[in-house]
């Protein structure tokens, strides 16, 4: 009797032990940069253990993966990338980390926007995967909230494929988040409506807002050569200033990844206001104004509205 009770006790303990471990085992997901990371967190919730490669204020165009990244990749069960050739270094990283995780592109199925030729720019002389936009698809698709919704559904599907047990949770989270995105979309449209039509143009230093421009009707002037590249030619700067003067562009925006002095000089000479910072390719740190995707879009549109609506500076 004692023996069988003890055996039963042992057996039940043995059966119970792994369960908490199983219950706690999260899905290891690697997201290529901070914006994707935010989406994955929203949809994945507690079921997901997330590693983001290019963190806040980082520039994914010229990112150099570290050994820690390779380790995370090897341990991952799912990798989420942007696609549209945004991460030129991802293929090499997948190969070198020998990761067996499926790589899901968040932009699958998106209505591709071809960046107009002549708006290309190179990122850094050492990066062989020079990021030239001219004639290619603009990868910054998340700038349009409509596209962001597609990102979210793609991510949801990828998570379900990797972790079928969490299907219900993922669907619920996604639906809730999509609703928030809808509200955000409305917010942006309302904001733009308040800006007089003639004033809906501005200058940034990075060619990242094509999708935003297309979907919300604001013209973004971004010159060739004055972006994350290190050196601008006088010709490009002069051309931009002339254009800004002629079109009476209201505001010039800095970015969280470039040298501010040049932009300030351009603003001064073209008579435009310096509008503050726009967040294009990365979120800010959690204590910054753009810690999540929704905050980022809100920050951007509020800054734009403030700069372009005529009135006291």
């Amino acid at each position, binding site marked *: 009797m004692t023996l069988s009770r003890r055996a039963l006790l042992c057996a039940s303990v043995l059966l119970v032990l792994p369960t908490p471990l199983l219950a706690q085992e999260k899905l290891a997901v690697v997201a290529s940069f901070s914006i994707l990371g935010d989406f994955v967190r929203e949809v994945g919730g507690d079921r997901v253990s997330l590693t983001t490669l290019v963190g806040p204020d980082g*520039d994914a165009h010229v990112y150099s993966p570290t050994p820690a990244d390779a380790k995370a990749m090897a341990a991952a069960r799912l990798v989420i990338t942007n696609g549209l050739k945004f991460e030129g270094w991802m293929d090499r990283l997948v190969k070198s980390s020998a990761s067996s995780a499926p790589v899901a592109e968040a932009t699958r199925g998106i209505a591709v926007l071809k960046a107009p030729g002549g708006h290309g720019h190179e990122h*850094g002389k*050492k990066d062989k995967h020079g990021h030239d936009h001219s004639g290619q698809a603009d990868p910054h698709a998340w700038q349009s909230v409509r596209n962001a919704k597609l990102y979210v559904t793609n991510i949801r599907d990828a998570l379900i494929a990797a972790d079928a047990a969490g299907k219900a949770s993922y669907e619920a989270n996604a639906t809730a988040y999509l609703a928030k995105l809808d509200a955000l979309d409305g917010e942006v449209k309302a904001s733009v409506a308040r800006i007089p039509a003639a004033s809906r143009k501005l200058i940034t230093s990075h060619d990242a807002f094509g999708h935003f421009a297309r979907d919300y009707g604001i013209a973004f002037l971004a010159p*060739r050569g004055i972006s994350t590249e290190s050196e601008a*030619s*006088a*010709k490009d700067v002069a051309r931009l200033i002339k254009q800004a003067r002629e079109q009476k562009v209201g505001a010039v925006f800095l970015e969280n990844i470039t*040298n501010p*002095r*040049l932009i300030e000089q351009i603003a001064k000479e073209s008579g435009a206001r310096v509008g503050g910072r726009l967040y294009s390719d990365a979120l800010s740190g959690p204590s910054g104004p753009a810690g999540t995707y929704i905050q980022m879009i809100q920050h951007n549109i509020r800054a734009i509205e403030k700069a372009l609506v005529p009135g006291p500076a």
Partner: protein
Amino acid sequence: MGMNLYQLFLAPYVEFDFMRRALVGITALALSGAPVGVFLMLRRMSLTGDAMAHAILPGAALGYLAAGFSLPAMTLGGLAAGVIVATLAGLVARLSVLKEDASLAAFYLISLALGVAIISMKGSAVDLFHVLFGNVLALDDQVLLLLAAVTTATLVIMSVIYRPLVMECVDPGFLKSVSGMGSTVHLAFLGLAVLNLVAGFSALGTLLAVGMMMLPAATARLWTADITWLILLAIFFGMVAGYGGLTLSYHLDAGIPSGPAIILAAGGAYIASLFLGRQGGWVWRLLPGRHLRG
């Protein structure tokens, strides 16, 4: 082309403030870089100048880490790093079996790697490029003031130490026997070199700032052997390269970045002088003419 001379040579500067500023900045750099560069070259320290430019990097990087693209922070940091490396190199040369060139090489390489590591900690490769290449088209009032101050300081100090500096170059033993000023002068000169590199660095970045010092000096040497003329010609070539490079960067559709354009212009003058310079220019060597009577 259809552009008249005015449009070609003056209009860019009349029309755009950033062009005027760039020209003023580069002129200041040429003015103060030339005498320093001439002496570096005559003392066979041309590569030392290059090494010092790299040595400055971690100081500027620390300044950047502490305060972003803050001019005072990066300038002070760069100065400190330059002085430290120069001093350490000298000390090691004096107190060990290594000569100054080896010890300087060791320190500047350590310095450079340190600088890259520091910047990569906070920023990305992009920020590194900004520090390495500067931006001559974004010279705000602060930077212009710094350049003007450095130019003034350089010209004043050079005129003060000119005589002992020449002596120290030609016959250091003699200088030592008549005065104790030798090492002070040597340090003052190195200090000026570092100062000019740090100033040049906000306009042209670390890699190219030393170009404005050495290329005009080397070019001038191909035309004259007289010290006074060397300095004057070096200033001249520096200014011409600055103006030429900027104007080229403005007009050419290819869109050459302005910093490299300036250095390329200086390089072009150098190569042309290799052929045409009165001092041993290759063209002159081919047509030597008859020798003189006596």
